[in-house]
């Protein structure tokens, strides 16, 4: 057993190169906030995030393990882990490369790679993998979320076009504009569930697409918009995999990643926890340091325990990805669930300890540059992002309870 990431001499040399490159290309020393989207457009931080995304993308490091021919880094898992680890250690990163381009590559890129035509791969993957284009995830609808196979949006073939009608919700972020919509729609209303869905990469400029902003608790990754598709005519070149894959996209929507990517987020101490530990060591109430209050201590021990379990589950997930041991099991879902539980535990503890100071974004009095305020409501906003805890448990059940599908 080994619970430590160690470099071979060859990897140590590579790590030096990565450090030098980062020093040269991204020397900024400010911290990005807990949520990269919690940044005003055109602020220095926003510009830095874009710059970092494009620099990492041009180097191939947004998708370090992907083939170079599609815009990836062509790195081994060990090398990719070094890139991730080095990025994660920088003050401007929270947990690695994923800060700069969440999910477009790991979701949409993988799906295109899996069933796209060679022409589509050559056309869409390089700009996606280089971080040059933004896609919004057009999966969820007003009447379907966790049960994604129940989508109602239709895309009916008419010659070499598909006519799209329907509504998608909770797309995108507040500050970005999309270039494409990753759209899933029913292409054959008469076919059986799971055998009736196509995947499209829809340019946002097509006639018949409109959008309105949704008033979500702000800043969560899946936040901003509702989109309407009114007789939108989408040419077949945007149907991933072409006509012959028009009804069988489900198999790639529901399966595991083709290019496992290491995530070294587990190797970095949680900065909110570090901030609060430091804060209570220095702050007095009623003449007594907060760190001497037994309730404060107990609350921070509990967050520490949850964070440690989270770290170990993250390490295990990374190990599974690195060794290709098992790509489908309950472990990834368990790690996601633990992440949500941990962040909720933190939010409650920090709010208890810090009081209303955890609720403000005031430029003078907000704690940790406003990150504590974000941390406070993030678990609520993020509870459903990607997957709800309840559905996490349903997925775990198949493995953990050995209960049939």
């Amino acid at each position, binding site marked *: 057993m*080994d619970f430590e990431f160690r470099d071979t001499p060859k990897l140590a040399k590579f790590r030096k190169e990565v450090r030098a490159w980062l020093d040269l290309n991204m020397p900024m020393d400010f911290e990005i906030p807990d949520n990269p989207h919690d940044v005003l457009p055109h602020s220095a931080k926003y510009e830095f995030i874009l710059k970092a995304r494009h620099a990492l993308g041009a180097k191939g490091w947004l998708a370090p393990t992907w083939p170079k021919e599609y815009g990836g880094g062509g790195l081994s898992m060990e090398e990719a882990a070094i890139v991730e680890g080095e990025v994660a250690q920088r003050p401007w990163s929270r947990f690695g490369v994923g800060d700069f381009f969440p999910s477009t590559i790991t979701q949409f890129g993988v799906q295109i790679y899996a069933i796209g035509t060679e022409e589509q791969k050559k056309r869409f993957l390089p700009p996606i993998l280089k971080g040059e284009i933004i896609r919004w995830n057009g999966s969820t609808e007003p009447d379907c979320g966790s049960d994604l196979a129940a989508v109602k949006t239709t895309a009916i073939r008419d010659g070499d076009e598909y006519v799209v009608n329907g509504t998608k919700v909770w797309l995108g972020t507040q500050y970005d504009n999309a270039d494409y919509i990753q759209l899933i729609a029913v292409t054959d209303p008469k076919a059986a569930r799971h055998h009736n869905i196509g995947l499209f990469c829809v340019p946002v400029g097509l006639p018949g697409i409109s959008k309105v902003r949704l008033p979500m608790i702000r800043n969560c990754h899946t936040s901003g918009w509702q989109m309407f598709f009114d007789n939108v005519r989408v040419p077949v070149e945007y149907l991933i995999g072409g006509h012959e894959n028009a009804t069988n996209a489900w198999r790639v929507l529901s399966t595991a990643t083709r290019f496992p990517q290491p995530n070294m987020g587990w190797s970095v101490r949680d900065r909110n926890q570090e901030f609060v530990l430091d804060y209570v060591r220095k702050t007095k109430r009623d003449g007594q340091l907060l760190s001497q209050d037994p309730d404060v201590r*107990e609350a921070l021990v*509990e967050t520490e325990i949850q964070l*440690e379990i989270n770290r170990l589950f993250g390490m295990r997930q990374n190990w599974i990805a690195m060794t290709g041991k098992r790509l489908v099991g309950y472990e990834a879902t368990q790690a996601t669930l633990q992440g949500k539980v941990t962040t909720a535990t933190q939010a409650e503890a920090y709010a208890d300890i810090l009081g209303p100071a955890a609720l403000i974004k005031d430029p003078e009095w907000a704690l940790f540059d406003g990150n504590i305020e974000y941390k406070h409501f993030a678990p609520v906003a993020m509870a459903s992002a990607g997957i709800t805890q309840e559905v996490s*448990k349903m997925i775990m059940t198949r493995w953990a*309870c050995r*209960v049939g599908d």
Partner: protein
Amino acid sequence: MVDLALSEAQEIIKRTAHDFVEREFPAPLAIEVNESEKGFSPELWRKMADLGWVGMILPEAYGGTGSSFVDMAVIFQELGWAALPSPLLSSGVLCGLTISEGGTEQQKKRLLPSIAKGQRILALALTEPDYGWGPETVKLTAKAKNGKFVLNGTKRYIPDVHIADQCICVARTSQGADPQEGITLFLVDKSAQGLSCRDMSAGAQIGEKLNELAFDSVEVDHSAVIGEVDKGWQVLSPVLEKATPVLCAYMVGGIQRAWEMAVSYINTREAFGRTIGSFERIQDHVIEIVNALDSARWTTYEALWKIDEQKPGITKSVTLAKIVSSEGYRKAVDLTSRIHGAAGVDTRFVLYQYIKKSRSFYHYLGGPMALRKRMAHLLFND
């Protein structure tokens, strides 16, 4: 490189241990042995010693095999899976390590080979009426008199000492400002004059055999001192730390078994015309058990790895592992019991033995409430 798999050799150890407990210790026997007067099977103990398990982490020079803590834990996990009771932790780990790390050459030569062979059983007598696992709780006195030491006081909640030949008694030889100073370890024969042993758990429904040891002017020679006079805690403290995740591994095995029992039951038991595993409220319980299992498993093995590799942060890891294992084991067996309904509290069913062990080991070597305080000290460096 991060590698969370057991080595091939450890996989073989695991298989051997699992086959052994499955073959030698099926559920009916687990109930019979655990419920017997001594809570112990000398026959199984002999077989375990023959397999080399008792001396596993003791040095080869003294009859042990000098294996790693992870190796030892792999066996403990299987013993915990089977709810197999034995003085292995007391004799082979706690006392064996105390002697091998603190004893004189003569003591090691005299004691360790017979401990490793299982012929001599030792138990650790640390905790007292003022219960706790820190040095400040040690009140039993040892006073020098006529070239001997005279021990007076009481040790409570001591497992395994009723089947032991000797105990290592943690005594106070002097009292200063620092409670860690002035503690001395004595090897005491169970048959020593003035020493009496009483089963405290007689009649109790829940928990393992726990004993009270009364020392009424028990005289021991200077040769009985393990390590230096007044410096016993410096020997014992790291031993307690190293033994703790080994115990945690036993608890991990218990949680594993609780999970297996739960899964087996929910897929066969029917209610309202369907197997109960199809009910999400039941599934939620099993998810909780699995989360407890994996949390305990990885915190425990990281602590063991740190001990084997002498990595920094051992105390924090061990503290974390014990909190998570203690709380997780109790939660897992309780949920398994709830899933089983009344069958979960029928003493003819082996789950009962796991419920008992989850309680006994909850506090052993440190309970979560005390350990959470220790974790706070570590977090705040105070």
